[in-house]
């Protein structure tokens, strides 16, 4: 039994996933600290599509993983004292339900107790793993390039900024938060910029061309299904005539 149809259908399935990834990238083109993703595909070496021992085996395509573009997003200046951007490889530490989570979205604010919080209201942690708390009536804080927080010239703490050896291997959990998946933290060697935010690193032009490419590839896969079907139909007709 020839399985040209199955090959094309598997290709279409992978293309659909690629489309979903590209759609998510484009949907997050204005999300602070967002990192673009792409689906990795490969030829499935373990399961040939047919058992015949041909020199060039026919094989399925499959999606093996997700590649994350961890490059720096554009830094835009906002002038707000509680907007903080990271230049370089690193993440802010945020208090999650079960242990710390990480984010590159530095659009922070204060809650009614003077605690530094993210957009979703989770506490931002300092280098000691405790929430950053400001005197509610005090002066506005200054944040240095190394994450040191000072008020009126006196250092009161340091933002918990950490790096990971393999940031692409982390898991996104939504709300601009990332989970480390048990990876050990490394020394952060980038810079903190106060009064600025890191934009999404999605390249819209690239994503749009990918979308066109995916949609055309999907069409040609559909044509393969159609041609395979036609071929089969003609075979039946010819053989039936004899």
């Amino acid at each position, binding site marked *: 039994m020839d399985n040209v149809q199955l090959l094309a259908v598997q290709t*279409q399935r992978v*293309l*659909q*996933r690629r*489309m*979903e*990834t*590209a*759609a*998510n990238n*484009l*949907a*997050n*083109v*204005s*999300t*602070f600290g*967002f990192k673009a*993703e792409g689906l*990795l595909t490969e030829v499935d070496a373990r399961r040939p599509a047919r058992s015949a021992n041909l020199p060039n085996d026919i094989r399925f395509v499959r*999606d*093996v*993983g*997700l*590649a994350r573009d961890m490059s720096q997003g554009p830094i835009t200046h*906002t002038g*707000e004292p509680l907007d903080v951007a990271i230049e370089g490889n690193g993440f802010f530490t945020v208090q999650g339900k079960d242990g710390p989570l990480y984010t590159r979205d530095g*659009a922070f*604010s*204060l*809650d*009614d*107790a*003077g605690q530094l919080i993210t*957009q*979703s209201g989770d506490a931002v942690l300092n280098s000691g793993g405790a929430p950053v708390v400001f005197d*509610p*009536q*005090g*002066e506005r804080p200054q944040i240095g390039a190394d994450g040191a927080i000072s008020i009126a010239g006196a250092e009161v703490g340091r933002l918990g900024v950490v790096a990971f050896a393999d940031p*692409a*291997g982390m*898991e*996104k*959990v*939504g*709300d*601009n938060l990332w989970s480390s*998946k048990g990876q050990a933290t490394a020394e952060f060697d980038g810079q903190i910029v106060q009064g600025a935010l890191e934009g999404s690193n999605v390249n*819209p032009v690239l994503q*749009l061309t990918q*979308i066109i490419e*995916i*949609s055309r590839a*999907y*069409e040609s896969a*559909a044509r393969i*299904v*159609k041609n395979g*079907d036609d071929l089969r139909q003609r075979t039946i007709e010819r053989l039936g005539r004899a």
Partner: protein
Amino acid sequence: MRSLAIAATGMQAQQLNVEVISNNIANMNTTGFKRQRAQFQDLLYQNLERPGASTSSAGTTAPMGIQIGIGVKAGSIGRVTQQGSLERTDNTTDLAISGRGYFQVSMPDGTTAYTRAGNFAADADGRLVTSEGYPIEPAITVPTEALSIAVSRDGVVEATLQGQVEPQQLGQIEIAAFVNPAGLEAQGDNLFLETAASGSPNVSTPTSPGFGALLQGFLETSNVNAVEEISALIVAQRAYEMNAKVITASDEMLQTATQVR
């Protein structure tokens, strides 16, 4: 076809973005207006294949998983509380706060609202009121025989009365500061209300530590920057178009799929 729904979340987000930007532009000339900013967050991720999942009985594991994001949502609409520029009006009842703090206004229902718009005027009873007629708190009443009033940087209001050499003190304007002014709830009419997020007001006289100073004959203009807003509008519009393009492409794929047979 998940990409249709994903792109729809993107379009919704950009629509909200345009709404926020248009409100900023509409309030470009509103006294004491603070511009807003839509902030987005990615939605949950679907783990189709978890990183570290076992790939063979020999103990090999997948180095990377497959996580498909399902779009974007508006995380919050932040208020940028930067100081607006101060504009000289020479009107004696126009006040501006330079620095932290909000004027307190008594609402008709007895609650207190807060505002940065200091375009006050005297009503029929001589009370200093906002443009809606709500008196400021603590109330300041200007006597009818007053020739002129003077407001000092620290909020003391004095009036020069007909036939008197010494000015008469009318009262003391107090302003309220919040831990998180971005958490105040906008009420319309340039007024804000206290919320759980803003924290309770800390009331004091102007120029005391941590509070701004009052400037008489000035108004605080809106902190909207037209160029910034227009460029943000262009970006939002293009992002909207790009998400629409994803919907078109996904639709074409679906069409192809239905035409196979």
